[in-house]
């Protein structure tokens, strides 16, 4: 399977999935790299290991390569930029266009960044503290999600032999991935607000400080008794203020204070061990360094190994893995010339 990847981080993520599916991925990056959340070396290693890269962004070359490909994932900052690449004229491949607003509509050629799209799409309004400026989501969530959907759509189209153009707008990706915000408005007339780390509709749910770190809890009613056992605060079970989720929500400030005091004298290791004993869903906050040394991930063979600046580093494998199939060891991206295929 030949995949032509044109673009930046959405197309790059699609190509990442394609490489690990065993496809032959040739990448073209038109123009300078877009701003990223990590160093160029890390973005390169994470997204482009195992690919070949053609340095030229000549439109005629791109069209020649597209007509030799089985799938084309084409990402650009506006609809006209997609058209300028010749997207609508390519006949051979299954082809996906990924743009901020899609190929139609009044905004199709307007500029955007992931942060402006998250704002328009309703995410930003509900992230961060209630009385402060909302937070923006760091990282390439929107591009990676769009890229995964682009890969899935192109692959599905290829299964069906469908070569009609596929149009993905990132704003719609944001809106499609909302848990209940939109239906709550349409069905209950309620507008979801932001409350910091508190999930709000379930109590208790929040981030709490430990002696040596933080822990996040999200205690749905089924786990209330087990959580009380974890905290070793049996009085909570008979306290009339906390008998039901509705009551816990009504008295959340008092409950938060009790829980904060209980956690403040405990360590991460203690809380982690108690969570396992009591079977309570909570997450002791792991730093990025912690994650790199997480025994669970190592034992599961999650890490790939990539060469970056003369060192061999651990890079996350795909989020999915076929049983019995080891993670691939991929070479760094190689240059390719115009005769890539």
């Amino acid at each position: 399977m030949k995949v032509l990847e044109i673009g930046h981080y959405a197309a790059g993520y699609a190509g990442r999935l394609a490489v690990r599916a065993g496809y032959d991925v040739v990448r073209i990056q038109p123009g300078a790299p877009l701003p990223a959340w990590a160093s160029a070396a890390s973005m390169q290693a994470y997204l482009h290991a195992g690919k070949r890269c053609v340095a030229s962004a000549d439109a005629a070359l791109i069209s020649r390569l597209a007509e030799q490909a089985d799938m084309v994932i084409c990402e650009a900052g506006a609809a006209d930029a997609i058209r300028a690449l010749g997207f609508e004229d390519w006949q051979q491949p299954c082809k996906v266009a990924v743009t901020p607003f899609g190929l139609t509509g009044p905004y199709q050629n307007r500029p955007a960044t992931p942060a402006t799209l998250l704002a328009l799409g309703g995410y930003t309004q509900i992230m961060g503290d209630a009385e402060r400026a909302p937070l923006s989501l760091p990282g390439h969530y929107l591009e990676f999600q769009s890229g995964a959907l682009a890969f899935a759509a192109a692959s599905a189209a290829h299964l069906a032999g469908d070569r009609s153009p596929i149009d993905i707008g990132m704003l719609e990706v944001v809106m499609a991935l909302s848990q209940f915000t939109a239906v709550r408005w349409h069905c209950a007339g309620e507008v979801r607000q932001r409350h910091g780390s508190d999930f709000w509709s379930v109590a208790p749910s929040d981030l709490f400080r430990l002696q040596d770190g933080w822990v996040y809890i999200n205690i749905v009613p089924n786990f209330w008794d087990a959580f009380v056992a974890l905290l070793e605060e049996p009085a909570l079970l008979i306290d009339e203020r906390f008998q039901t989720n509705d009551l816990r929500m009504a008295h959340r400030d008092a409950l938060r204070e009790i829980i904060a005091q209980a956690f403040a004298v405990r360590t991460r290791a203690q809380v982690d061990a108690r969570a396992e004993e009591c079977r309570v869903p909570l997450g002791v906050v792991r730093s990025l360094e912690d994650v790199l040394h997480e025994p669970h991930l190592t034992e599961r063979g999650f890490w790939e190994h990539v060469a970056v600046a003369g060192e061999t580093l651990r890079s996350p494998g795909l989020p999915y893995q076929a049983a019995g199939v080891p993670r691939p060891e991929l070479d760094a991206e190689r240059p390719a010339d115009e005769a890539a295929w």
Partner: protein
Amino acid sequence: MNKQPAAAVDGPLNGVRVLDLTHVWAGPLAVRFLADFGAEVVRVEPPTGRGPQQASYSPLGGWLGGAPGERPWDNNAMFVKLMRNRRGLCIDLKTDAGRQTFLKLVGQADVLVENFSAHTMQNLGLGFETLQAVNPGLIYLTMPGFGHSGPLAERVAFGPTVEAMSGLTDVFGYGVDEPRNTAMALMDPVSGVNAVAAVVAALQTRRRHGSGCKLEMTLHEGGVSYCGPWLLDQQLGVPAERWAARHPQMVPHGTYPVAGDDQWVVIACADDHQWQNLFRILAAENLAEHLQAEWGLAARRSHEAQIDAAIVKLVAGMPKVTVAERLQVAGVPAGAVATVPEMVADPQVQARGFFVAYERHATPMPGNPIKMSSMQPQQWRQCPGLGEHNAEVLEDWLGLSPEETQDLYTQGVLHNRPPA
């Protein structure tokens, strides 16, 4: 994959049969994409799968139609949103007859998706080895929180708690000592979307090589994978930071207060050209006295506070939509921080017809961001009632007669309402 499609909308996966045993968000989200792609999806639920007959609390997304109705278990709006384009089978897999019937369905399926905790299917006597023996070509996608192996395999997992373990907390929050959780269960859509890619890729592989497979997609590894670039930087000695609403490689990049209570606009300049466009606007309002159009990223970073101060003055007292429109037209990325009603009313959202009113009470539901000519939202089917298609599915897939189906009801294997 050569079966005639039945009870499926048009799409590239016509002919693919999927058994859906998912619940909550990540799994159902993945299956919704497969159903939108035209796969023939049968949702397999236990009698208690949608809660009790009497609702004891309001669901997070409210009730479809605004009230529980006569069948509250069919009216949880957040559930309904995820369940279009499939048929509903309610079967008790804890009975021998239920398991045997289910295994026959497995024999007819191409894909099975579940997101139970690690040993649930095995404990039902329906582990992968059993399913594979019935159907060697089955693509089996399991989506447990932490996987079926490893020290964390037995842990209970919810999206928000797994987020805390993914590394994301190192980079999300207001500052050094102010971490935050997104409180949006972000790990669920990360897993759900990647699961779609996993299934379709596996269908491609099966077409080439003929064999099925077991795929494992965990919430935890989805979240860690999302943090991949930062994890690489961590090893390179590039420290992670919490940037709040700022960005390491864009200046300006922030959330700015506008007219009204809790009203904001996001403005970002991804390159020098966009900065120059913004500079012209600031200059036109006499706000650029201490700024320079030719500043590159490094210079803008060293003058970030001044730039932000100028922007704050520019947008103060203006409606966010007015600000965003003016900047967008001038070539500066800007987005009004929208509440849901504002988002739904946005001209672009309206023009693209993203929300589709196919459900009961003409309730608009989020659409599919993938637009393909073979996928037509006007064909979309409503969420099935619990057990609504018991007889239809068993006849279609297994050739069961009405009498045989009735016998399964009599045995307590099939249901169409929760237990009293």
